[in-house]
């Protein structure tokens, strides 16, 4: 797919305008998260805008072409612009766009969701070895339990609850990796009433019914790898934008708030907190750009996870530092910093927490060192 630069910039500009006119008003009261119907309405408008290609020809939408570098770069640019206004909206768009991409490839017509979290946050090296298609004999039992037991091991879904199909990776010793489309009617869904962050979305645990039909459709290992990569890239991008929002908020407060006779930003203690946040954002942005320059799928996934192991804790800390600049008032839900921080803390654990991703990277590292 060849995307004209002028078209890309126009699209990003349009989404930026949309964010300020349509999303920002919904986020005015951080203590009162917009309800799911309001978010669904925004998503519908983004479909109309072409950000989310639900039906029709993919072009300038999020995750329209997972194998094209320019398209992926545009995707994270769009996600970033949305996340500047709402982490939750950006996450929902990314998830729905990924599902729509998979559905197009599989020839399905559904409103989809994705889940790229394993049943348990463990056995990272086994997962990575399986992605390299080199699981050990001992790995197979673990992988089967971790990625192939959806009847007993619920997956986590974070998003709107209007999905009809959920896509998730499955590993079995017979079929190896598959990206499976599971119908809502084949699932037992439990809503988790008190989600930690991304307040506008629902937390659901989703389990395959014991008597369920087989998957509606499935895609091969290359789509699993692309899915892991793009989902992680989205989480990283949203985290960067969320940290940006948190640090900007704290910087403004550091100018406005006077203590000890001067603006608090003049104190080294505050300046250091802000600078640490800026450094985390700049580093993550630089690493994200490098991911976009990496073509080979496994190398790209490896680098994406490497970046997340370092960037997610640093970005979460940026959010925490931003809250610290506010002091006591930052702890109150109607001010904003605590919501940014909870969002960052949630994003840090979605799609594999840093410790889990570190072990996956370890297996990639081992493989790479053997092939050198």
């Amino acid at each position, binding site marked *: 797919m060849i995307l004209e630069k002028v078209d890309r910039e126009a699209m990003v500009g349009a989404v930026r305008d949309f964010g300020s006119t349509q999303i920002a008003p919904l986020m005015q009261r951080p203590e009162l998260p917009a309800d799911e119907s309001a978010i669904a309405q925004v998503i519908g408008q983004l479909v109309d805008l072409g950000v989310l290609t639900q039906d029709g020809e993919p072009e300038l939408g999020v995750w329209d072409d997972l194998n094209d570098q320019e398209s992926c770069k545009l995707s994270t640019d769009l996600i970033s612009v949305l996340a500047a206004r709402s982490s939750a909206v950006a996450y929902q768009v990314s998830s729905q766009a990924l599902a729509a991409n998979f559905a197009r490839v599989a020839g399905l017509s559904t409103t989809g969701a994705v889940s790229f979290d394993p049943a*348990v946050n463990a056995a990272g090296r086994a997962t990575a070895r399986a992605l390299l298609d080199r699981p050990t004999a001992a790995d197979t039992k673990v992988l089967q339990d971790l990625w192939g037991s959806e009847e007993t091991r619920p997956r986590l879904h974070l998003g709107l609850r209007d999905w009809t199909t959920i896509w998730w990776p499955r590993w079995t010793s017979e079929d190896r990796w598959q990206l499976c489309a599971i119908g809502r009617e084949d699932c037992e869904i439990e809503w988790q009433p008190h989600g930690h962050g991304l307040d506008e979305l629902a937390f659901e645990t989703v389990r395959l019914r014991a008597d369920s039909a087989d998957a509606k459709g499935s895609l091969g290992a290359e789509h699993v790898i692309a899915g892991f990569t793009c989902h992680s890239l989205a989480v990283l991008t949203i985290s960067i934008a969320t940290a940006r929002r948190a640090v900007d908020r704290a910087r403004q407060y550091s100018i406005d708030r006077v203590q*000890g006779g001067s603006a608090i930003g003049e104190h080294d203690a505050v300046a250091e907190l802000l600078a640490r946040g800026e450094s985390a954002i700049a580093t993550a942005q630089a690493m994200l750009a490098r991911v976009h320059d990496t073509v080979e799928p496994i190398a790209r996934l490896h680098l994406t996870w490497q970046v997340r192991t370092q960037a997610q804790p640093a970005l979460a800390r940026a959010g925490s530092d931003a809250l610290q600049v506010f002091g006591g008032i930052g*702890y109150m839900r109607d001010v904003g910093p605590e919501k940014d921080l909870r969002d960052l803390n949630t994003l840090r654990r979605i799609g594999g927490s840093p410790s889990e991703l570190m072990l996956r990277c370890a297996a990639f590292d081992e493989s790479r060192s053997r092939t050198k």
Partner: protein
Amino acid sequence: MIQDPRTGIAGILTPSHKLSARSVTTGLPELTKVAFGGTAAIGDPWEVETAQLPKALAKLRRSARKFAVEELAPLALELDATEHWPLGQHPEAIDELLQKAGRAGWLSDLLPKPFGGSMLANARHPLPLASSIKIEEFSRVCGGQMLLLSANSLGQVPLLLSADLGLIKRRLVTGMRSSLAGDPYLFAYAITEPQSGSDVEDGYGAARAKPGLVAKRVGGGWLLNGSKVFTSGGDLAQGFTVFASLEGEGFESWTCFFVDRQTKGFRTVGTELKMGMRASGAAELEFIDAFVPDNDVVGKLRQGWALNRQTLNLSRVPVAAMAVGFAQAACDILVDYTKRTTLAGRPLLDQQSAQLVVAEAFAQTSAIRAQLWRTAASWRVHQSYAAMNKFHASDTAMGVIELAMDLLGHDSLLHQNRLEKLWRDCRLTQIFEGTNQINRLAVIEDLQAHLS
């Protein structure tokens, strides 16, 4: 699924193995074992530590844990998830809890019987240590309910420090006895002002800030005008230790006043919707010509700043205790989760990566508790030690909780697993009683004679 102890933990020698740590207790001479080797293959570290405490404090620790587990734990998740309640519409469970805590002496334990609720034997031990032991146990189960109960102690401290026996008897002991009789009389400590957050925690800031609550001299007493914010427990308290500047003067004139809730011109405006510790209200207080008689001045005029600083020295140590409790809770959740959750038929604790996390969490928690107990084991807590304890323990505890959250991954975000609540609750310990940045500067202030 709980791990069968006979099969041990994967990758770790079983206790019965000839080369295991148990060999220390079986293969050495008796004298050597008595002197050095008696601690191999220990059981529950909490029991071991408790047994090492003086008898009275060990008893206190056990009773605090029992009360926390029996009374606080069942309410913890529910109160955290309950929608923000308007003033006067708190859940009945809170009233019941306060009555039970009152009768059990947890609202009056700054003084020994017969004046207050603590055992006379506890009086032989430093108050900061006894408070820390109690607060760790309460925090371990629920930060919000812990704050609900311990903010009361904070409000009592200035009365105690005033050494005014008449006032102590009339206000403090009377309130404590009411609580002991099952009619809770809570105290709250009101220092933070809308335009002076950290200023009131730090002399350098206070020297340059403008007071927001002012006391004006009138016949027989003082009229208070202004407001206070973020007053923990200020929604339910009956008695308040309130700090105000004298008219026309700065923070150096700060004076502590005892204000009863029934005082005309005083009211609680509302409470904040907080990130965590949600069972305890953070209230805004309003004073419009609220009259305080001379005999309710706590300490002397212009002695408020000293009382405040001394109170902070005593209250920062309990904040460290809160952090230790939160870190311990994270350890407990980690152990439970890694034993209960299985992968391919084996508990997660069989994975070396999980073992490393559990060991790290134990080490960090043990270290901050050791620092806490050392600092608290003195009646005279220095500002620098209190502040070091507070910021180090709270930062470390957040690290321990985040370590645990990383191991649980997305499961850590589910409310029923308690970690995300713990994380939200603990985050406040880095902020209140002075932000951790202010506390670092408090260390330098206290040590400046040595440093300069």
